[in-house]
């Protein structure tokens, strides 16, 4: 039993790693295609039919590029920083149930690596660690633009951690558990049981904060391309830069899963329909990341901090207080 459990866990880890590494690659393809369609272009078309093999071409390019470590950079930390980003993104995936449990060849599979009873805290914590990648990478590359980016990244991530945590408090109070499986079971009754109906404010806040946590466009200040070259990635090249990218896209996928599990019912009662709906809902949130990138401009750093501390955080606190009162009486 012990051995079987061990083997199962290892297989699950390998599957998640492979699937989401590949998905992160395809994420770039989807992003380029959708951004292109939204601006009346075609996007990548040359490699393979409709450019679907673009990811392979990109991968070959990234792997074969010269790996440059600048002279003044702090070598070991410069090299380890991209690994941190990618690794923490996949570590966070350990507590996410990707599908309802299913039985195959008489063996029940739980598509979650570790159902820890502090799942959400764990995910938040590991995603908080994820920003060490940009931070250490920037500090180590001895580039002032990278340093600026690191300062912004630190400020944005720490600030929006607050919003994420506070916005999650209210649903946590209702469910009474940190486990994502418990969250899912709480909303298993159907659409009317979804937490989004009872906690719309928390949902919106978490959604907004998710953009900051993943560093996507309206809050794309970690690597603000049009102001500070490529932010933390300025000195990076080849696969090291690619690892940053994989981390970012994996994070987008995982946070889409988490949003759906927390607020939109997850996989419901665990039927095939529920699993399909789960993937559909998750795809919508991933699509929304790209949609927003096509439509909205970045906001200024001071506006970002203003939004966090003077708008989102008070709303989150008020939401928690109101939820507490409603639950008490």
């Amino acid at each position, binding site marked *: 039993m012990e051995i079987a459990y061990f083997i199962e866990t290892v297989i699950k880890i390998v599957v998640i790693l492979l699937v989401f590494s590949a998905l992160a690659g395809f994420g770039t393809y989807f992003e380029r295609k959708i951004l292109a369609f939204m601006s009346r272009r075609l996007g990548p078309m040359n490699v393979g039919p409709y450019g679907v093999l673009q990811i392979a071409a990109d991968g070959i390019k990234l792997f074969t590029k010269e790996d440059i470590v600048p002279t*003044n950079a702090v070598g070991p930390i410069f090299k380890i920083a991209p690994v941190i980003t990618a690794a923490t993104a996949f570590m966070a995936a350990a507590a996410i149930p990707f599908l309802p449990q299913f039985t195959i060849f008489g063996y029940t599979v739980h598509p979650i690596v570790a159902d820890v009873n502090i799942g959400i*805290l764990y995910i938040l914590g590991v995603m908080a660690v994820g920003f060490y990648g940009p931070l250490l990478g920037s500090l*180590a590359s001895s580039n002032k633009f990278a340093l600026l980016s690191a300062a912004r990244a630190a400020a944005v991530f*720490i600030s929006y951690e607050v919003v994420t945590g506070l916005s999650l408090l209210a649903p946590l109070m209702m469910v009474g558990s940190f486990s994502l499986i418990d969250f899912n079971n709480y909303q298993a009754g159907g659409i009317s049981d979804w937490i989004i109906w009872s906690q719309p404010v928390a949902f919106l806040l978490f959604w907004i904060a998710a953009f900051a946590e993943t560093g996507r466009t309206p809050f794309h200040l970690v690597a603000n391309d049009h102001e500070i070259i490529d932010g933390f990635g300025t000195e990076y090249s080849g696969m090291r830069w690619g690892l940053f990218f994989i981390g970012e896209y994996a994070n987008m996928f995982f946070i889409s899963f988490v949003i759906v599990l927390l607020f939109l019912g997850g996989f419901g009662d665990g039927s095939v329909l529920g699993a399909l709906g789960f993937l559909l809902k998750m795809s919508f949130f991933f699509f929304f990341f790209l949609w927003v990138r096509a439509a909205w401009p970045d906001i200024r750093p001071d506006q970002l901090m203003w939004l966090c501390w003077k708008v989102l955080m008070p709303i989150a606190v008020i939401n928690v207080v109101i939820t507490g009162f409603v639950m008490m009486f």
Partner: protein
Amino acid sequence: MEAIAFYTFAILTTVMFLITVLTNHALYALSALAAGMIFISAFFFLLGADFLGAIQIIVYTGAVMALYAFGMMFFDTTRTVVESRTSPQLVFGLTGVAALTVVAIFVAPIISENIVALYPAVDGAGNSQMVGMVLFTKYLIPFEVAAIMLLVAMIAGIVLAGKKMDHSLTLMKDEVECKNIEKEQA
């Protein structure tokens, strides 16, 4: 299984903290300390203190170390830090003596036999539930005091690092010197 995990993380933590203490490079120290903090949270998970482990990751690695990193941006991180070492023998000797003393105290069987659980764990409750139960009954006042302390610290941090604090309110020596220099120039 537990022994493997314990020894792995014990060695990792020790190595990381040794790097933090002994390196001459501020960035190495920062990274090693952050890694050590994460490895320490592994002990908390091993001990069944899940909530504490998550808090360790979120607060220590997420917030405290980030603040340090923020602080480090004011200094040159790629330069090596020169420590004026006076007498390493004294440092290591004193530390060894202190460590031995603490080991003796902890390992002394008299103490460990007389410990009785003040707030015993409740069966059937998860770790976070137990933490909540104890924290909001017996330790409510310290909890509130800690909250106020954090608030005070936050305001103090804002005031200290704010823009208008380039000149000191207490040490007026520099300003006097500056004014003297200005007068001389004028």
